[in-house]
């Protein structure tokens, strides 16, 4: 990605007013602008869904952080997406407590139902499936998140409900 930025004609896009507003707010929390780099990437991702090269360059210019340095931060963090993701991101915990309680079966169920493996997005761009380390709810394993919602004691049946919920808004019970 670094090379693409350095050697091709990709240009920074214009940040939106909302993005600039949120970034300016974060700036008030730190004595140095560089500290806002990750927050700014998260803000861009919140509005755009992911961090494109054009977005990365825009943040780099706006905060005056060299693009390579910002890319070093972007690629370091699991939750900054440098490739497009679907409208809904499923984060399935694959750490040890959830593994003991069958997260591999849940992954197989999601893969069968949606036709996507870890790291893939459905053709209709509705779902992306990503493994995530321990979500800090191991007493209610298995655990997963979709976007900003956490689901506990997940079963294949519950996954069906959750998928339906993000397709058509039908209800799903939260547990714990």
């Amino acid at each position, binding site marked *: 990605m670094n090379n693409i930025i350095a050697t091709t004609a990709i240009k920074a896009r214009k940040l939106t007013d909302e993005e600039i507003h949120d970034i300016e707010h974060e700036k008030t*929390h*730190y*004595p*140095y602008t*560089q*500290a*806002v*780099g*990750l*927050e700014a*990437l*998260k803000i861009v991702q919140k509005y755009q869904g992911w961090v494109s090269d054009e977005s990365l360059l825009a943040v780099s210019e706006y905060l005056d*952080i060299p693009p390579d*340095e910002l890319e*070093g*931060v972007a690629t*370091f*963090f*699991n*939750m*900054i997406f440098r490739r497009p993701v679907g409208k809904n991101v499923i*984060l399935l915990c*694959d*750490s*040890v*407590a959830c*593994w*003991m*309680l*069958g997260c*591999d*079966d849940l992954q197989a169920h999601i893969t069968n139902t949606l036709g996507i493996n870890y790291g893939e997005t459905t053709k209709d761009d509705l779902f992306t499936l990503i493994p*995530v*380390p*321990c*979500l*800090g*709810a*191991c*007493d*209610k*394993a298995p655990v997963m*998140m979709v976007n*900003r*919602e*956490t689901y506990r004691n997940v079963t294949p049946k519950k996954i069906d409900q959750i998928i339906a919920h993000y397709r058509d808004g039908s209800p799903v019970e939260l547990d*714990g």
Partner: protein
Amino acid sequence: MATDKPLTKNIEIGRAPFTFQQYEAAGGYESVRKALTMEPKDLINMVKEAGLGGRGGAGFNTGLKWSFVPPPDGQPRYLVINGDEMEPGTFKDRLLIEHDPHLLIEGMITTCWALQATTGYIFLRGEYIECEQRLLKAIDEAYDAGMLGKNILGKGFDLDIYLHTSAGRYICGEETALINALEGKRANPRAKPPFPQVSGLWGRPTVVNNVETICNIPGIVANGVEWYKALGKGDFVGTRISGVSGRVKNPGCWEVPVGITFRELLEDYAGGMQDGYELKGFLPGGGSTDFLLPEHLDLVMDPGAVQKAGSRLGTSLIMVLDDKTCPVGCVRNLIKFFAHESCGWCTPCRDGLPWVEHILNKMEEGRGEMKDIAILQEMTTYMGPGNTFCALAPGAAEPLQSALKHYRAEFEDHVAHGCSYKKH
């Protein structure tokens, strides 16, 4: 009478956390009122004498850690709360923040007075959405009530607290990596010394403390050292959040007196193993601790006692390994996590962990060879203490080396026949 559950007295799962007013009505923010009438160095001594050990994993005396901060020089100094909580099997800081955010904020204000710090950051795991929302609300309430901001309680003390949400990377929990992350850099750990207390965030004196550690401060300061000491069992002091995950009847975490045994936690709190499952071993305090065996259940949950038995108390959230779960598969899962989360700085960690993962994959798939067991053994020494920049790799070696010791026959069996457990 003061409570015997200072960390969780306000917690009721299922109801919204206390607002500022409710929290104050329940006796909250008393430690701030008291602290602001005290000399900072007396506060530090008080916490030192209380014998509170850090709850982030290493257990270092908190007051002692604070005492390494040089005297004020008019320039900024920082308190940073470590709420990264990504150690597999650890789910206590989430509970505390989600259900009583004001306790952490109160602890931070009191601590900042002790350290004469005028800025506090909370470094929170990005995936903890409810924590983020509830903390932001609680911080706003505290500002509105004059507990944060300029001239707190009219005592001329200024303090700002900011929330920083991360984006998912275990190494950010290591305190010097956390400082780099907070500065907006790639989160590789820093060399120590200098220690953060002397030169941390932006080169200034910085104390990094775990969420639960700081949640202990309001009780100690408001109720005194003797009260705090009496909370523990026997000679042990205080309470801590301990918990159990895995195939037990009632998984969860609870505030327990320091000094109970693993057996008490497992049987009295977690209800024992689920029917049809036997205890084969357990990780006493997160994914980076050595396995202990059923014969260790009567050990007291104290860092010293656990160390003598060849492991670490770590975060004191135990994970049970049952007789129907493959120990090799369990270690493989842990190693996969550490391999993924390595920051890539040192060779034994960056290259060693994926190699170990590869060998464990082979074993699980029935393609292991006898010499692989010897290679795994050798790898634990390369990844051991002193060979890497931070404690991630030595932590990863712990479950592996103890599994090779306690479950060696199972490794050999994998080489001979592949994995005979139900496929997970």
